[in-house]
């Protein structure tokens, strides 16, 4: 039986279409489920719609200017950056996931959770620290110059390779986390199956294990890609101009929010196309769950294999976490005395509370979305889900404004109505409430929670549903008693990612927070806005430490 389920995992395009996966025809229709993706998509469409609606606003002079000057270079820069980050995170994330999930090497247990830690370090912070250490004025190059003379050669760290390296170090955990999840539940089994098909270990990895983990890997890589395309902070530290640079330049430099929005909508169209292509390829595959007990016997690495595995894990951990956080720690120790006060507890509390609420909301909605799409796997629903998860590709400030403007409009309209109908001054009713903030977070991070939960849902085959139905389980009961246990690790993954991402998030927090609701990320913004990076180390260290909480909780849940 094992081999049967596994062999269909390998690409099987001719016989299986995405539509025939679930026996939905014999289920009683429930219109509630049907509507969920569309409602969520409509919500996410608020900011995206605001952005897209700018398309007809006149800004042609700025377009002409950009096309004639910087745009071609920006596109090329963005392309190389995206390609570099995609291949880098895939390579690093998948290798580390495979090593820690399936193999045994010195330090494996420690690395399996420690390799998640870089998730808690914002990419722009890593970027700033790395440049401080490795650029011309850093200790390394200064030492080299003092040994070898003032003309000692050193590769340009502020170039393309530098940005790509920093982003890979910052974003590989997305791939690592998701791929590891896949390998944990199927890795060893898939190798056994491959062996029974006469493949050796290497062939087995590439022909069976890797294709089977495909939706997880693709999901993780997609998150890294969207994060890269939306990034502004990291590329600004490197002064590496990407498409996002043009968006912000049009807005802040040339005061044209219209041109900025038009550029942003172009970005969205590209990402949407990428999602469609990726899912089209994936839709032709089918995945099955296997028992997790197979984890017990691992492939033991010996000799230089074991050494190389440990070195790779340690090297990654060192550059992505220990080095930046160590430097932050040194800086923070310097500013601790003058800057630390009781308010930090408040910042911390706000960060934790907002992240927890946002994770809860976003994961619940993602779960509903995934479930609805499973029950109604038609083209319209799938498109609605794709739209619902697009917010992650939008640069944060653009999304924040896109959310804010229509809501303020609604608020003004409500106030107007109240005034006309009841002669009362209401002021702003919905703005400046946490509800708006959480809604905006959800719009941005739905992709982050959707990806792992969706991948986990693919594990639940039609036959499981049929078996459950034959036992009289339906609807909520089936979700709770059959699906949720299988989805558990996916949901935990999603919650961890959203939690940490919200904690690091800056533009939405800045724009939608109620008065007095400053968080650690807001504090980092305050410091870095005037270039006081070393003072930003204190809130940054606090943020990293707070981010460790969900990561450790997560590991305890999944490593039991």
């Amino acid at each position, binding site marked *: 039986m094992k081999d049967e389920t596994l062999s269909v995992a390998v690409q099987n395009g001719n016989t299986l279409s995405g539509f025939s996966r679930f026996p939905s025809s014999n289920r009683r229709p429930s219109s509630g489920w049907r509507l969920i993706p569309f409602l969520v998509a409509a919500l996410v469409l608020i900011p995206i719609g605001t952005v897209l609606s700018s398309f007809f606003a006149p800004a042609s002079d700025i377009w002409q200017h950009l096309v004639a000057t910087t745009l071609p270079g920006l596109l090329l820069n963005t392309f190389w950056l995206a390609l570099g980050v995609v291949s880098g995170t895939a390579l690093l994330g998948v290798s580390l996931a495979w090593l820690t999930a399936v193999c045994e090497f010195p330090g494996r247990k420690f690395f399996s959770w420690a390799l998640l830690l870089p998730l808690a370090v914002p990419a722009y912070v890593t970027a700033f620290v790395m440049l401080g250490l490795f650029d011309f004025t850093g200790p390394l190059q200064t030492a080299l110059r003092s040994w070898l003379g003032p003309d000692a050669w050193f590769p340009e760290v502020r170039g393309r390779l530098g940005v790509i390296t920093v982003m890979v170090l910052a974003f590989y955990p997305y791939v690592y986390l998701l791929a590891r999840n896949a390998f944990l539940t199927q890795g060893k089994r898939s190798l056994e199956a491959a062996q029974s098909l006469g493949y050796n270990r290497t062939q087995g990895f590439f022909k069976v294990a890797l294709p089977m983990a495909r939706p997880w890997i693709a999901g993780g890589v997609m998150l890294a890609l969207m994060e890269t395309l939306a990034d502004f902070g990291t590329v600004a530290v490197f002064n590496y*101009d990407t498409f996002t640079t043009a968006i912000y330049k049009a807005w802040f430099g040339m005061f044209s*929010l219209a041109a900025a929005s038009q550029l942003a909508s172009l970005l969205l169209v590209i990402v949407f196309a990428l999602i469609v292509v990726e899912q089209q390829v994936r839709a032709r595959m089918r995945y099955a769950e296997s028992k997790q007990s197979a984890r017990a016997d691992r492939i033991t690495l010996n000799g230089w294999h074991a050494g190389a595995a440990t070195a790779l894990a340690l090297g990654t951990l060192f550059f992505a976490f220990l080095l930046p956080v160590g430097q932050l720690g040194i800086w923070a120790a310097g500013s601790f005395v003058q800057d630390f006060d009781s308010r930090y507890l408040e910042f911390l509390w706000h960060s934790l509370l907002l992240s927890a609420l946002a994770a809860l909301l976003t994961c619940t909605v993602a779960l509903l979305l995934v479930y609805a799409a499973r029950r109604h796997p038609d083209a319209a629903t799938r498109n609605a889900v794709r739209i619902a998860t697009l917010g992650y590709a939008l640069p944060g400030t653009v999304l924040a404004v896109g959310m804010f403007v229509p809501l303020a409009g609604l*608020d003004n309209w409500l106030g107007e109505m109240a005034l006309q109908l009841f002669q009362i001054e209401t*002021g702003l009713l919905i703005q400046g409430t946490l509800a708006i903030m*959480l809604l905006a977070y959800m719009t941005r991070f739905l992709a982050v929670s959707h990806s792992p939960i969706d991948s986990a849902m693919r594990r639940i085959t039609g036959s499981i549903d049929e078996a459950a139905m034959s036992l009289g389980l339906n609807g909520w009961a089936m979700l709770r008693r059959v699906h949720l246990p299988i989805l558990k690790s996916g949901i935990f993954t999603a919650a961890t990612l959203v939690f940490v991402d919200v904690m690091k998030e800056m*533009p939405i927090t800045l724009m939608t927070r109620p008065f007095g609701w400053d968080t650690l990320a807001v504090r980092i913004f305050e410091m870095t806005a005037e270039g006081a*990076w070393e003072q930003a180390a204190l809130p940054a260290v606090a943020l990293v430490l707070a981010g460790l909480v969900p990561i450790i909780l997560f590991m305890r849940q999944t490593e039991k």
Partner: protein
Amino acid sequence: MLTPRFGRYLAATLCCATLLGAPAAHAEQVVVYTARIEQLIKPMFDVFTKDTGIAVKFVTDNEGALLARLKAEGKNTPADMLITVDAGNLWEAARAGLLQPVESKTLDANIPTHLRDPQKQWFGLSVRARTIVYNTQKVKPGELSTYEDLAEPKWKGRLCLRSSKKVYNQSLVAMMIAEHGEAKAEQIVRGWVANLATDPLSDDTRAMEFVAAGKCDVTLVNTYYYGRLLAKNPASPLAIFWPNQAGSGVHVNVSGAGITKYAKNEAAAIKLLEFLSMEKAQHLYAEVNMEYPANPRIKPDEVVAAWGSFKQNPMNVATAGELQAAAVKLMDRAGYR
């Protein structure tokens, strides 16, 4: 039932959250949207509250977001005052009709005309001078003269610049457009780009560190960054040079404020604006961030005064806003990243 229960929790939480966010009635207060960060503005607010009993409620964000926010909120905005750290964004706020003119004898007397909006919709409150910083071991002050001179071939491979994305550089180039016209200004910026020793850097501090480490000899920075760097590292071989003293003067920008068009606490907000232009607050601007007071009767901080006095460019800083978009385009054309 796990999920519906979650849903109920969520609903309850959101209700609480909504209540938390509801506006509370207060005694006299001013609501401020500020792009000047907390550490650099709260000290002034604290003194104001102590002196007048008027509370100041504020929220920080970047300028672009604050402008978008004011625009979207329209006449229901809770904000009475907008504070930014450059004239360009104040100019844009006035242009978009988000501010109102303020007639005040105090402000007229305290803030020189070139540091405020001709329509009096906003007022500069502190002066940020963008000047030349050089490596004392590699450059003799006699070699230096003007911003324009840095475009000459003798500086080839000796210049470091911060990225053109920063508004401080956009304002500087905008002022050069006003003074020389676009063609000449573009020629100068092209000259700078040709003289760069390395790709433009992400901030003023980095640019000075590159000068100190010997990658290049000169750069352009706001003086308070110089002050901060020297405070941290007094041995740095760096010094300030005031350019264009025989001509138009040093380029200055302002951090300033305006009263919003739909201010609900207009009288209190004007009181705060006036307070910020007076002695106590003006001293604080220098104390918290080594900026120059906008009020010419107030002496700068000791540390700042030690850098010497200089002639400011008397052109109205509003010009920086008017010509900012043109400056950005010019820098794109000239290949200044």
